[in-house]
């Protein structure tokens, strides 16, 4: 049997590449550790000395502000030295040159690579080639996975709802282009959420999405009925090829989250969004800024979750 590339011989987390295939115990270890780091981020001195003397390279082959910034803050709060590299990727920059980039950084004594790449699988490729003391954290690869976002979503859900085993969670919108959705679905199923729904137009749902263990809805009123958690996804304009949608206005009419549509959900439902939000496209401002919204706490929790991930992998 081939070993999970994320785990070392003792079954400990060596790299974080995808939530898919992570054992429940490892997921819980990350969430529990993040809970303790959340305490650190509330103190006057928001730093701990764990990664003192270590270097974290933020390798962003695809632009991102929020994810890069929260990784940077997380690494700095662990006392690591952080080097940010924004590497514009041309179609010719593939395979060999990606590994060459990493080999060069490795020669500069890197300890952790945080990688975002437009190609699915790029962080896996890097993880296969790094030295044993080097660790790779996937910060989003193509349409494949965005495990730290998935983990911070799980952390947020657990923070507000405590127990996964009674929850109905709806993920709404552009599932097709969303690496966040995939990561979250795997996490929710592993942690025992009994019902995960995806809601969206046929054209924005991947074929065979049911195989992930979700219920598919095309109608918001039906799909949101009684749900405890609503996860809105960004309509990914930059990933759209061809006419999957008539228009953003049309999308908002059917799938944009308004107070009226949200009324179908449980009274104490929480509304999440991985950001950046398109107000008036997938979510109405009244909801985004409303009492059910936990969108900004998500960002704060993201720092604690990334501190947990980096300190766990760098120690193994």
């Amino acid at each position: 049997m081939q070993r999970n590339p994320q785990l070392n011989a003792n079954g400990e987390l060596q790299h974080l590449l995808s939530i898919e295939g992570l054992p429940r115990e490892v997921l819980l270890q990350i969430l529990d550790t993040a809970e303790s780091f959340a305490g650190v981020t509330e103190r006057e001195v928001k730093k701990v000395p764990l990664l003192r003397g270590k270097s974290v390279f933020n390798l962003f082959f695809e632009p991102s502000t929020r994810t890069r910034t929260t990784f940077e803050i997380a690494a700095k709060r662990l006392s690591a030295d952080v080097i940010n590299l924004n590497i514009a990727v041309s179609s010719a920059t593939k395979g060999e040159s990606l590994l060459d980039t990493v080999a060069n950084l490795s020669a500069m004594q890197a300890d952790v690579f945080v990688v975002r790449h437009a190609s699915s699988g790029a962080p896996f490729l890097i993880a296969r080639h790094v030295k044993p003391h080097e660790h790779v954290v996937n910060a989003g690869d193509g349409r494949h996975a965005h495990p730290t976002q998935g983990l911070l979503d799980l952390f947020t859900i657990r923070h507000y709802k405590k127990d996964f085993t009674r929850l109905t969670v709806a993920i709404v919108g552009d599932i097709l282009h969303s690496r966040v959705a995939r990561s979250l679905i795997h996490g929710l199923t592993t942690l025992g959420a009994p019902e995960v729904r995806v809601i969206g137009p046929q054209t924005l749902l991947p074929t065979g999405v049911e195989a992930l263990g979700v219920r598919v809805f095309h109608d918001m009123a039906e799909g949101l009925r009684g749900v405890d958690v609503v996860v809105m996804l960004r309509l990914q304009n930059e990933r759209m090829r061809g006419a999957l949608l008539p228009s953003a206005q049309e999308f908002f009419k059917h799938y944009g989250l308004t107070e009226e549509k949200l009324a179908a959900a449980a009274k104490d439902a929480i509304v999440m969004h991985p950001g950046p939000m398109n107000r008036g496209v997938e979510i109405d401002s009244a909801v985004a800024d409303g009492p059910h919204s936990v969108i900004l706490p998500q960002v704060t929790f993201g720092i604690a979750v990334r501190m947990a991930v980096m300190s766990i992998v760098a120690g193994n």
Partner: protein
Amino acid sequence: MKLPDAEKLCEELARELEPRIGPKSAMIGLYTGGAWLAERLHPMLGVHAPLGLMDIAFYRDDYHARGLQHDPKRTKIPFDVNGRDLLLVDDVLYTGRTVRAAMNELFDYGRPQSISLVVLADRGGRQLPICAQHCGARLEVPAGMRLSLKRDPAGRLALVLEPERAA
């Protein structure tokens, strides 16, 4: 080897500490055994500030060798550390490394006026220049054995000696 009764040691410690409690006093217990002991001592002594609980996982000096400990608890210090006379409570004092880590963490919360160390048992074997100001019992424990505090479901405390787990 016969171990002293932890319940009795706890009462003796409380009697010893009582006259030293003042308006600036506060108490912090170190997870897990020290937290149990502190949860017991705190109400007995009538310390005004609420009890603090601390997990030193993020300050351990063996992180690079052993990685991050599983399931660290969240440190909760519900009072301003600045200017306090702190009683730092742990179950067993051994190498002194836990206490060093705890002091490092404490200073990220502020600058206390003083810190005194309170332990149920001192088993010797110090690797750092640290000593306890208040100690329930001094015990000779052979290397390779682990002395720790246990709490049964009824809340009773007991010292136990067991072979050290392989690192």
